[in-house]
């Protein structure tokens, strides 16, 4: 009925901000410490199925063997861009509860040694980017022990000859 239409419907708003202190544990903790102190990226080579896992866990989820501290292997910080996207619209950032334009393109980068990492690209102009371009991590001067955030972005480097 017409009366129905103008019935005022009410919504109750809540701003919910839940704090978390996630522990990185011994394995990812080691990776974060190394990134902060020595600007190096490590992964774990599963002794059984030979997968190079990054970020590492206490156990290989593919063949269920447990890792020890001598399975570490350096990953290096160079790789090729497998896929990149520049979100045209603002993205909701659940860490802050706000919408924000990502000023840099986000790339899925495969390290030369095999594992992948999602991170920012330095180059903002999409035309200058192409699939398969080679990139290298640009490290923050003083690492803050927050892992991937200790890398500012990945910068294009010349192709391998």
């Amino acid at each position, binding site marked *: 009925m017409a009366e129905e239409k103008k019935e005022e419907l009410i919504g*109750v708003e*809540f701003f*919910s*901000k*839940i*704090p*978390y*202190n*996630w*522990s*990185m*544990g*011994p*394995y*990812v903790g080691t990776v974060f410490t190394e990134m902060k102190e020595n600007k190096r990226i490590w992964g774990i080579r599963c002794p059984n199925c030979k997968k190079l896992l990054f970020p590492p*866990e*206490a*156990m*290989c*989820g*593919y063949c*269920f063997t*447990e890792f020890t501290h001598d399975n570490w292997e350096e990953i290096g910080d160079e790789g090729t861009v497998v896929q990149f996207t520049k979100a045209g619209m603002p993205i909701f950032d659940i860490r802050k509860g706000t919408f924000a334009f990502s000023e840099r393109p986000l790339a899925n980068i495969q390290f030369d040694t095999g594992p992948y990492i999602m991170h920012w690209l330095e180059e903002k102009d999409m035309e200058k980017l192409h699939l398969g371009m080679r990139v290298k991590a640009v490290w923050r001067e003083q690492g803050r022990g927050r892992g991937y955030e200790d890398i500012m972005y990945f910068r294009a480097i010349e192709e391998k000859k």
Partner: protein
Amino acid sequence: MPERIGIVAVAQTKYHPNRAEVKEGEMAYEAIKQVLQETGLKYVNDGSGIDAAVTCSQDFWDGRTISSLNVASFVGTHFRCEEKVASDGINAVFYAMMHILSGEHDTLIVTTHCKESQTSPSIIENHSFEPVLMRGLGLDFLGAAALQANRYMNKYKITPEQCAKVVVKNRGNAKNNPYAQAPMSLTVKDVLNSRMLADPIHELDAKPVSDGACVMIMAREEKAKKLCKNPVWITGVSNCYEAHYLGDRDLADCKALTKAAKQAYKMAGINNPLQEIDVAEISEKYSYEELLWLEGLGLCERGGGGKMIDSGATKMDGKLPVNPSGGCLSGNPTEVAGMTRVVEAVLQLRGEAGSRQVPDAKVALAHGTTGICGQLQTVMILSNS
């Protein structure tokens, strides 16, 4: 029920106020590793090992949208089956039992984990209240439990001393439990002198913030007998929802627990629970709850919770030892509390409860609650014969 489901291996981590040195998955793996070593089972698809996994965790506690991803690698989910129950851990055991009985798989690993210390329990608990009509009041489980405590204690004249006796008993029992988080030698006066959180609940009347995980392996009867020499059988189980709005319930009563207990007893063939049950592990997040849940479970008459604790019947040498493990009051995380009760019941029935062992226990009761003032009640009867 023609076929029975057996629990063949159990393990739990030492409950701790702040496991800051491990990730959630690695904490769960501490317990998972023990059951894998004990049974020698592997995650294989040929039916000779663990066929699938049932996990139990909450996205709010882990701070991650699909929180079973935290244990995915440790329970062998790659190209295999896994289902997550998002209620208290005891409900994951209940579901895993039905999963096996349905014939889909024969052997399951069932895990639960929760790190309360990494976040704010009060804010998360506030998210369980109906948003339009209750959430704005800023209540959490403590406030709601205090409303229930006052109502229950007022109606049946339960005294704060009687509630304090529960804490003295359970925290004392915890001294015999190497996994317990906070064993304490207390007197009633100590409890009543501890800081008042919300009338009538003192600090020691409430369960502490806790991190931990527990795990078990369950299998069909014929396979369970092959996997271990003393499997523990689940002979009766049921659960039931109460109303959500606190105003809809008589908080001095627990109808849902009474109904769940009746159904579980009927299934297990128990006519007189107080006589036939040798040991009980009850989820008491607050001291008054042990008394109220005893009434709901039919282990004493309505309003007789106070007299029951006074009589000492629930002490280790009493008629029906309750919470030899120290219960939730000596430290269990929210999600894990219910499954810890089942794990402790299994240890009692296998005679592996060490210095907290109830001599020749044959039938045990495990109980778990989910939600505000124990809205979802789960009762499980286990036996070793």
